[in-house]
């Protein structure tokens, strides 16, 4: 039996960064990410982590520093949340297009207004198209594991892309959980020293981040697109290797009680833990329900999705972000689009829940299933669950 240690997830995340032996941390404190960054600054100040800790004046600068540090061959880390990710937005595209293997923990928080510091996925969904590998975790162990795996994936010569590890603010980041840590020796074996493909050095001058005329810009985007898509087998390979070392296996989409399922619930992040409970209750009621946990958001796991939903009659998609005035939640619209050309596919229903830290109890998940499998009401694009209405 692995020994487990109780620790706040924010701090466990910092411990994972320490085990990854990063060279540079640049971050601006923002709720609910603060504990991670505070703890990293302590680890550096107390001499437990030999890294440059650069306190910057904004998230725009945090990512700029990470880009500069990565350009000279440093293993870098940053973390942000909600409005911080929004302020970093411009640099996200630069980091990925310049192919720097930066790792960032996004402690998901909503976007104002009204001012709200709590969790949903509005922040990462607004940055969805930034060209990063994007992973969702649902508990502290996954946050710890995925942070270490992220460096191995990002720095693989077949990949060379930044990775965002998404974890829910407060409802996950501030939980104290029993965690299985790994030894420095294991991490050293799993994650060799970063060997950059190109580095800025006076001995071999080169230009990074040059400009590109219309004659060549689209070709550069094609390179990026292909690199992100082709990262998927590498991601799986790294996760398989992690499973061999720790016994903890990850997949682009992970199924829970999907045997013989006719109703599927697809969700990302901490709400999956609640949805597992809802699935258990539905099964007790004799309903053939199962859960699909979306682990890998970019590159999007099209093949895995099509294969896993092939036998479903109903697919409920839970989004914790609203594409206001659009087709519904970002995950819902992508899932429905991914299944459009399939000859046989489940009825896909989209639900928005848990915005700005609103609790999503199992009853809400069960209500989604009832609505999705019930008589067809006047069909709207999607349904917001848990809204108080007049009358």
């Amino acid at each position, binding site marked *: 039996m692995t020994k487990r240690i109780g620790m706040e997830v924010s701090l466990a995340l910092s411990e994972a960064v320490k085990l990854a032996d990063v060279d540079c941390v640049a971050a601006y404190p923002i709720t609910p990410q603060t504990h991670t960054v505070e703890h990293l600054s302590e680890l550096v100040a107390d001499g437990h982590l030999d890294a440059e800790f650069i306190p910057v004046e904004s998230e725009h600068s945090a990512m700029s520093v990470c880009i500069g540090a990565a350009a000279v061959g440093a293993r870098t880390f940053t973390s942000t949340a909600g409005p911080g990710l929004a302020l970093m937005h411009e640099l996200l595209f630069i980091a990925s*297009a*310049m*192919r*720097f293997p930066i790792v960032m923990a996004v402690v998901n928080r909503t976007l104002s207004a009204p001012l709200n510091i709590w969790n949903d996925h509005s922040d990462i969904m607004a940055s969805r198209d930034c060209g990063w590998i994007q992973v969702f975790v649902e508990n502290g162990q996954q946050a710890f594991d995925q942070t270490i795996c992220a460096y191995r994936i990002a720095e693989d010569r077949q990949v*060379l892309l930044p990775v965002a590890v998404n974890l829910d603010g407060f409802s996950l980041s501030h939980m104290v959980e029993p965690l299985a840590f790994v030894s420095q020796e294991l991490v050293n074996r799993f994650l060799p020293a970063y060997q950059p*493909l*190109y580095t800025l050095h006076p001995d071999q*001058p*080169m*230009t*990074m981040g*040059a400009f*590109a*005329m219309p*004659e*060549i810009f689209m*070709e*550069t985007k*094609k*390179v990026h697109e*292909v*690199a992100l898509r082709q990262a998927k087998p590498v991601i799986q390979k790294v996760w398989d290797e992690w499973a061999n070392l720790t016994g903890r296996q990850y997949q682009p989409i992970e199924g829970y009680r999907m045997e013989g399922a006719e109703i599927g619930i697809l969700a990302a992040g901490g709400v999956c833990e609640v949805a597992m409970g809802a699935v258990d209750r539905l099964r007790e009621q004799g309903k053939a329900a199962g859960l699909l946990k979306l682990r890998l958001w970019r590159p999007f796991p099209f093949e895995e999705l099509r294969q896993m939903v092939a036998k479903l009659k109903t697919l409920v998609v839970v989004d914790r972000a609203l594409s206001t005035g659009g087709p519904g939640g970002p995950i819902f619209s992508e899932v429905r689009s991914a299944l459009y050309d399939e000859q046989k596919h489940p009825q896909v229903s989209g639900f928005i829940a848990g915005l700005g830290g609103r609790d999503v109890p199992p009853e809400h998940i069960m209500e989604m299933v009832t609505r999705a499998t019930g008589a067809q009401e006047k069909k709207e694009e999607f349904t917001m669950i848990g809204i108080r209405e007049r009358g």
Partner: protein
Amino acid sequence: MAKPMEQYTWEELTVGSVVTEPGNAREYKTGDWRSQRPVVEKEQCIKCAVCWIFCPEPAVYETEDGYYLANLEYCKGCGICAQECLTGCITMVEEEK
């Protein structure tokens, strides 16, 4: 760059579009952005090289007889040389369409 940009396929590009050959911006001629060009009145020129110092491109070069002229393949017509010239021997002239 060994060939013009429009001849590159995406498969030929470096990771991150890194430019590994220093100084190859020279092959990229930017002079056609210009709407005005500097014209030097040599009789007033004292060969002080202030225009050479201030040109941000840098497109100003020294001729064999010691004068300073702008290489029109790179000069973008910003007019800084005319502004800084000590004797006022440089005038900016409209490029003809």
